[in-house]
């Protein structure tokens, strides 16, 4: 068994104790979102011009955005405190590195673990979306891997940075000044072309905007291959940079 799988199996062993609660939350939060914002708020919003949001119901508009945003949220919670804990508080990685495991195995294991968490959350979210009749095409299934990729694109660079942190203050700042603004302004609730030009340009630099745009195009059945490839490329570049950076910071912190 490869080293990364051993790290994954360590995390899975811990997850076995909490999986019921975790899965329950993963179901309940999209239900609450789609019920309150989609249906409730949507009944008000739908009186506006439908063409502004692509001619679909407001629920069908924000559901894919929420899918991508949920992936980002899940990724940030998995790659902040837990990573610092394993580097510094609990020294989980030190114990692993005293065995034949290597820094590459640690980063690979975290990547697999993040994929697992994102897949679980995204599949559950997708099922809820379908139950709320917000899935409009067969290509919509591709929204699941795209959501996973969006989570990786955000989470892996964060993971590289988290390995360097020694207190939780920077994480509070990350959530307040990066995650939350992205969630609110990153295209989940309204099209980012409604933002002032400068903010729109900035939004397109973030992984979330690309994740939202592509999941939305897929679930509403409006995805064009060329723009899809563009979004995937941006997300993949973020993820790749995250992995490369994590290999560096993990080594700096753990193999001094």
């Amino acid at each position, binding site marked *: 068994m490869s080293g990364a799988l051993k790290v994954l199996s360590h995390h899975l*062993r*811990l997850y076995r104790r909490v999986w019921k609660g975790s899965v329950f939350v993963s179901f309940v939060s999209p239900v609450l979102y789609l019920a309150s914002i989609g249906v409730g708020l949507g009944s008000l919003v739908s009186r506006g011009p439908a063409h502004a949001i692509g001619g679909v119901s407001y629920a069908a508009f924000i559901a894919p955005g929420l899918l991508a945003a949920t992936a980002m949220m899940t990724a940030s919670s998995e790659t902040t405190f837990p990573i610092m804990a394993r580097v510094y508080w*609990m*020294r989980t990685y030190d114990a692993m590195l*005293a*065995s*034949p495991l290597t820094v590459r195995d640690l980063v690979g294991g975290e990547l697999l673990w993040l994929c697992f968490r994102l897949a679980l959350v995204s599949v559950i979210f997708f099922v809820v979306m379908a139950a709320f009749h917000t899935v409009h095409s067969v290509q919509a299934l591709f929204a699941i891997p795209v959501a996973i990729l969006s989570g990786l694109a955000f989470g892996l660079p964060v993971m590289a940075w988290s390995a360097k942190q020694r207190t939780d203050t920077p994480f509070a700042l990350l959530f307040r000044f990066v995650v939350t603004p992205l969630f609110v302004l990153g295209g989940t609730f309204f099209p980012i072309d409604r933002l002032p030009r400068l903010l729109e340009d900035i939004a397109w630099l973030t992984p979330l905007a690309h994740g939202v745009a592509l999941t939305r195009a897929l679930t509403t059945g409006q995805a064009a291959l060329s723009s899809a490839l563009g979004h995937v490329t941006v997300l993949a570049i973020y993820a790749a940079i995250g992995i490369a950076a994590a290999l560096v910071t993990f080594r700096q912190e753990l193999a001094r």
Partner: protein
Amino acid sequence: MADTPTRPDALIHARGLTKLFGSLVAVDAVDFDVDRGEAFGFLGPNGAGKTSTMRMIGCVSPASSGELRVLGMDPAVEGPRIRARLGVVPQADTLDRELRVAENLYTYARYFDIAGPVARKRTAELLDFVQLGDRWDDEVEPLSGGMKRRLAIARALISEPELLLLDEPTTGLDPQARHMVWDRLYRLKQRGVTIVLTTHYMDEAEQLCDRLVVMDKAKIVASGSPRELIERYATREVLELRFAIDAAPDLDGKLQGLADRVEVLPDRVLLYTDDGDAAAAAIHQRGLRPESTLVRRSTLEDVFLHITGRRLIE
């Protein structure tokens, strides 16, 4: 060093081994060899570089320069293959607080590709070996310091290592727990396990180590067996004199020629001599009346304090 013979067959072989942290020299060109089956100790004051050296041997911290071979291999190239044959008990324990006692051993076995049934069998045996058999399903955090240390030792043994690295294995343990750890380490040595340890306890070093080195300020300043070091750096006996605080005599010149070396401390005077009783008699003849006199054999502690000085190094 030019006069150190090359011993490439040694289990651990270090020449000019150096560790830098930025501009700080943590380990400064040390040479040592550890043979198969021996117990080898690193002694030295806080910050001397013991842990830094252990981490290089453990193939987690890359050497800054110099030569290091562990089990005949180069840690920079074959770290994972070397670590597969090591057991490591680090100074700050790295037990998994999220796992229970037996799970700590069991999951660790996975990292070494030990199959499930074998891992389970060894886990049970090792927990008995360190007398934690009845705590197998407990949480780790509430265990006492000594129990955690024993658990850490058991975990390090899960892969049946040839070479066991222990960084201060008994610091903070009560005498019973220390003796138990010594006993277990002694048994491992009987089975042919090579043991490298650091310690601040001189009795521990004397009990356990066939050979040891004393590190001070990143360098090795003395090496040999405990017996050799005592012979080289101390006399056979030490005479300890205590004077009443208000009646401390002016010792100037009065101790001349009584001992090989005299050390005047705030609370007592130490005379290093091969015949303590003779020195005590001579002192009375010179009219000195200490409140108490004690003749004892020299210990490694005398050697250590002599070599590294009595100042506190930070």
